[in-house]
């Protein structure tokens, strides 16, 4: 992304655009101030007091993921790979989100744990808990820094502020509202951000489509017709054989990577844990799945349009890199070419809001894991709740300061490469974590020792595949361009984790059944896993299973029409 500044992306923002941007920031900070009044305990601050309605947590659930990497990355993928990018949404998110809601949420919400690592602690004990809590906390600070850096780069490119100023200002805004209002403020802003993003991208898509002559015009103008069909996505996976490309997509992306990400990443699961009832918690990821299934229309289609109508993008696609533009520049270029002042201000606001919400999601999940899983469990136990509320606030300040530090490191190391490495690094943890969770939830015999040994074995497997396939390491035993290597690494990590967990469980001692109630399927009474269907949880349209089936059907229809 360091190339961004070299290409001419400066937008012609006028006073009206700045005014709209300022209004947004005033509202964001206002939310922080107002949310502060509702915080009276650490649970209020770190989990919104488990009081939020499902539509709020559901929109926050997908918004937390709709940050810099997602928005820039997926429009870029749209321009580069075309329709195949939809797999990241339809195969790579929807099934996992439905699975999280229907199968895993009863254990997360029902056991009253306050974080994903805490579930680990109760199911497998301290070694597995510590591995999970520390790797998650470190990962969130690093990703927060990278998100912050991406945000600063875009502010620099769009508005011309120097990088260090943008980094510090953006971190201060996030710090102000998350330290004041805690998770509620973060979630409220995520919901607001969702609507601003849609308000920014929908006009862009509509004007773009009119410019290319509608859908038919776009279909005619795309030079490489293969990019209009989603299957078999050989370009995206880097796997030449169409059959294996589809297998890689379905098993690697659709199963291991996406289930690993959506079901064990606390930054996501936290949103569902803050819901007001079991029914609302189950519905959170499923309600989020509906916009997630439809949003490619305003993320991927603009990418495809840009490759046709933005001259620099068309050149890049033909192999001419002289303009200095990279695929990540799709959105700013489209905004420059299509949007007049006024709506341009909304679009700039949407971009900045989305990047900031990404940082806030990292920070608000970090402070919970730090406070409950590290400080309370290992450093200062049994203090009154006000003490942990204070720790939570201080952890928020600490996370923002650390993120400024990691943002400058990312800046020094130079942008996009480091981002890719760290993404790869975190994929090492998600796939094994999912394997350990799923075996642990359904097999009561799985032992605490198997918990941490399996996790480490899986992580090392993923690292090994990465080491032998990443070209810059020079080992090159395996050559898989595109996403193929990470699909394979995640898939093998999952298999190794399951095999090792089963093997180790057979020779070590399991926890007694009495300690596993609420954590393992066969030992949890059905009543504890089901949700109430009265009061605010009543009505057939609030049935998680029905809503889940609905979004799976919707996705299938979308695949039939656009795949």
């Amino acid at each position: 992304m360091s190339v961004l500044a070299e290409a001419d992306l400066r937008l012609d923002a006028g006073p009206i655009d700045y005014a709209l941007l300022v209004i947004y920031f005033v509202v964001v900070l206002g939310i922080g101030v107002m949310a502060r009044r509702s915080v009276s305990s650490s649970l209020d601050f770190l989990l919104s007091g488990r009081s939020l309605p499902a539509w709020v947590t559901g929109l926050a659930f997908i918004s937390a993921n709709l940050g810099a990497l997602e928005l820039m990355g997926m429009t870029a993928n749209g321009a580069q790979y075309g329709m195949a990018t939809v797999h990241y949404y339809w195969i790579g998110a929807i099934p996992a989100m439905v699975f999280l809601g229907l199968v895993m949420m009863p254990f997360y919400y029902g056991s009253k744990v306050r974080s994903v690592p805490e579930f680990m602690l109760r199911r497998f004990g301290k070694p597995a808990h510590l591995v999970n809590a520390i790797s998650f906390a470190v990962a969130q600070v690093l990703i927060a820094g990278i998100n912050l850096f991406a945000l600063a780069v875009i502010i620099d490119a769009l508005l011309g502020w120097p990088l260090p100023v943008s980094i510090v200002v953006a971190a201060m805004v996030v710090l102000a509202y998350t330290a004041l209002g805690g998770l509620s403020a973060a979630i409220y802003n995520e919901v607001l951000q969702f609507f601003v993003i849609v308000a920014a991208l929908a006009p862009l898509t509509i004007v773009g489509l009119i410019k290319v002559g509608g859908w038919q015009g776009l279909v005619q103008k795309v030079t490489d017709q293969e990019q209009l069909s989603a299957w078999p996505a050989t370009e995206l996976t880097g796997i030449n054989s169409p059959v294996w490309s589809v297998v890689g997509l379905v098993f690697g992306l659709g199963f291991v990577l996406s289930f690993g990400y959506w079901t064990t990443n606390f930054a996501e699961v936290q949103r569902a844990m803050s819901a007001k009832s079991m029914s609302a918690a189950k519905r959170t990821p499923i309600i989020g799945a509906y916009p997630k299934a439809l949003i490619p229309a305003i993320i991927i289609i603009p990418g495809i349009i840009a490759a046709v109508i933005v001259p620099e993008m068309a050149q890049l696609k033909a192999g001419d890199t002289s303009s200095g533009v990279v695929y990540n520049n799709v959105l700013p270029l489209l905004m420059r070419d299509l949007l007049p002042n006024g709506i341009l201000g909304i679009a700039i606001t949407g971009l900045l809001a989305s990047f900031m919400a990404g940082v806030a999601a990292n920070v608000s999940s970090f402070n919970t894991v730090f406070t409950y899983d590290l400080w309370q469990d290992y450093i200062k136990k049994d203090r009154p709740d006000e003490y942990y509320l204070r720790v939570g606030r201080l952890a928020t300040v600490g996370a923002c300061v650390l993120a400024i530090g990691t943002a400058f490191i990312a800046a020094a190391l130079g942008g996009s490469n480091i981002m890719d490495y760290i993404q790869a690094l975190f994929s090492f943890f998600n796939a094994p974590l999912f394997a350990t969770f799923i075996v642990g939830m359904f097999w009561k015999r799985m032992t605490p020792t198997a918990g941490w040994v399996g996790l480490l074995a899986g992580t090392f497997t993923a690292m090994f595949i990465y080491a032998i396939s990443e070209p810059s390491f020079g080992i090159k035993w395996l050559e898989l361009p595109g996403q193929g290597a990470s699909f394979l690494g995640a898939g093998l990590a999952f298999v190794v984790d399951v095999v090792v967990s089963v093997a180790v469980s057979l020779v070590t001692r399991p926890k007694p059944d009495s300690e596993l109630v609420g954590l393992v399927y066969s030992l949890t009474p059905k009543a504890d896993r089901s949700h109430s269907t009265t009061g605010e949880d009543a009505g057939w349209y609030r049935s998680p299973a029905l809503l889940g089936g609905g979004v799976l059907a919707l996705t299938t229809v979308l695949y039939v029409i656009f795949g």
Partner: protein
Amino acid sequence: MRLFDLRLIIAFLFGLYGVVLVVVGLGFTSDDDLKKAEGVNINLWAGIAMVVLAAVFAAWATLRPQFAKTATTTGDDLGKQG
């Protein structure tokens, strides 16, 4: 735990944004602006859509005032789990 109603904030922000865009779209749109967006007065149309969104959220909040669960957190939730 008493949270303020997020729907009213959404209604406020988009009401304001919508009105500003409608005014810009009606009164301050040059031919260059129109040309940029292929002859569509995108400010006007986006502004109208935002006003409608704001109205929907305002109506929802008025008709169904109950928003977040107002019950205070129970002692059970506050205790250390595990």
